[in-house]
């Protein structure tokens, strides 16, 4: 079958790969209906997450139809329309029972790699390097889904494919950030990054009762989506002094909750950008933490900062003094989607969560390299390139 693959740093290919088969009793095979690009893929593309091997199939945000089920699957049948969480989690270990699914002890068959990096291993993720399990990704006509009863959810009949797709990754990531950062009624919430993840974090914060939500980015088309599709306010960091504007909005206090949805390749208008980029390219730091630094400075005393953006290793010039002296709570997480998807699908069905506007460019697998280029360079207002494998 045809698949979009990682061939090397900034090199995406389309090639023939074998079809997946059922290997475990709890597996199923899903015929992929739609499969999206995600900001996380850009970190793989740029070589910032080094455990990619040429030929690895990309893609972790997808939905489709059940094509085959293993003997241990009880929740799904052939023909079910499902959306699948990007993380592979067993549902039975202590972390899964705490509903911290991305921390699953069992979902990563290669635990030695992340143990070496971080001291402990976390769960696995489709199409996301050998460090997170070596699972083949979803930019292909078929994908094997382990722990199918845990990670796959039936899509309500009145939710379109284009909407359900983002219940796989972008939306539950936003829910993870807003919920685990402790957003509650009356909060003022600032979100760095107006991509799919930032937009969903803003929507989740609104649903959780935030009084005011502000999203920060520099791309006008993304900020326009935030205002019209999400209903949150916006700041353009190339035009506004972000910390000053946030102080003004909050009567001098700063936001109660700051959610960072940018990640390790953050852009910055100042000279510090060149410094961070040079250090990252010389491997003196692995990640550029511009937005995290700004979130920490902007946050109110005693407030909460959450890193949803992906970081792989070490950062430089980290304002630990502000974290300590302002008594901030700093947390991060990969998404705990299994916990939030049922609620998200219900809200999608009621029209409270709309996501189809994120799929700005829908194309065939043959257009994989072009889709990734457009997404990376934000060409033609691309917010997410989405592949349709059966075209």
């Amino acid at each position, binding site marked *: 079958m045809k698949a979009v693959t990682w061939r090397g740093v900034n090199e995406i290919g389309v090639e023939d*790969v074998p079809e*997946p088969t059922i290997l475990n009793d709890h597996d199923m095979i899903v015929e992929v209906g739609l499969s999206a690009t995600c900001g996380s893929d850009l970190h793989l593309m740029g070589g910032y997450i080094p455990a990619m091997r040429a030929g690895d199939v990309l893609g972790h945000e997808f939905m489709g139809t059940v094509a085959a089920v293993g003997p241990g699957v009880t929740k799904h049948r052939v023909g079910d329309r499902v959306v699948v969480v990007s993380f592979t989690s067993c549902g*039975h270990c*202590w972390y899964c029972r705490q509903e911290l699914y991305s921390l699953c002890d069992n979902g990563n068959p290669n635990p*030695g*790699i992340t143990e070496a990096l971080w001291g402990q291993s976390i769960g696995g993720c489709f199409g996301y390097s050998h460090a997170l399990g*070596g699972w083949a990704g979803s930019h292909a006509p078929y994908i094997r889904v382990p722990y199918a009863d845990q990670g796959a959810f039936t899509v309500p009949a009145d939710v379109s494919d284009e909407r359900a797709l983002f219940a796989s990754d972008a939306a539950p990531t936003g829910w993870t950030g807003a919920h685990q950062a402790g957003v509650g009624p009356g909060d003022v919430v600032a979100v760095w990054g107006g991509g799919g993840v930032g937009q969903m974090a803003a929507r989740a914060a609104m649903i959780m009762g935030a009084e005011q939500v502000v999203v920060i980015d520099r791309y006008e088309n993304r900020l326009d989506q935030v205002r019209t599709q999400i209903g949150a306010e916006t700041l353009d960091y190339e035009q506004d002094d972000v910390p000053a504007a946030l102080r003004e909005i909050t009567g001098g206090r700063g936001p109660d909750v700051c959610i960072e949805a940018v990640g390790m390749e953050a852009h910055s208008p100042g000279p510090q950008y060149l410094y961070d980029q040079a250090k990252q390219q010389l491997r003196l730091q692995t990640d550029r933490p511009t937005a995290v630094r700004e979130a920490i400075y902007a946050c109110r005393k005693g407030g909460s900062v959450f890193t949803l953006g992906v970081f792989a290793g070490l950062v430089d010039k980290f304002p630990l003094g502000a974290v300590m002296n302002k008594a901030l709570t700093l947390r991060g997480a990969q998404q705990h989607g299994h916990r939030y998807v049922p609620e998200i699908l219900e809200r999608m069905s009621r029209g409270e969560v709309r996501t189809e506007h994120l799929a700005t460019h829908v194309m065939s697998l043959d257009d994989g390299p072009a889709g990734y280029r457009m997404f990376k360079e934000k060409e033609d207002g691309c917010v997410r390139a989405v592949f349709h494998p059966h075209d």
Partner: protein
Amino acid sequence: MTSTRADGAVAVGERVVRRVRSALDPMTTAPPSSARSDPGWLAVTVLPDVDLETLPPPLTDLGDEVEVRVRPAAGGKGTELRARLRDGGSAGPVRRLSGTDREARLRAALREAKQVIEVGEVLRVDPAPHGERPSTPAGLLLEAWTRAAPRGGVR
């Protein structure tokens, strides 16, 4: 003087804790603090209660080569499953992380036993569909690390 009294109180406290701990751990008479500083033990925590009679094959296959102990984990986090090679000895961090130490097989067996106990089967990833893999040095190195990753670890 005060400090002596305080030290005495700590010592009594420790004895009590040790007695409680060793009562919880039916396989040992030695205080667990010495087991912890003993380098040979590898451990995983499994969620349901397990006992030594119901351990699954990935561990029991190693037979008399290994010594296994169980004890309840703190705070209801399940059961701590500990094992060590009888003719012990722990390698340095590089050999442990690369899964080339003598304990590598035991490390993998503990992880697999945990999966059998918690999920009922051992998760497999290979063969995963993939495209052409050129034999570059970096690619081969990553493949070797990936092959070792189920057996390698911080402990």
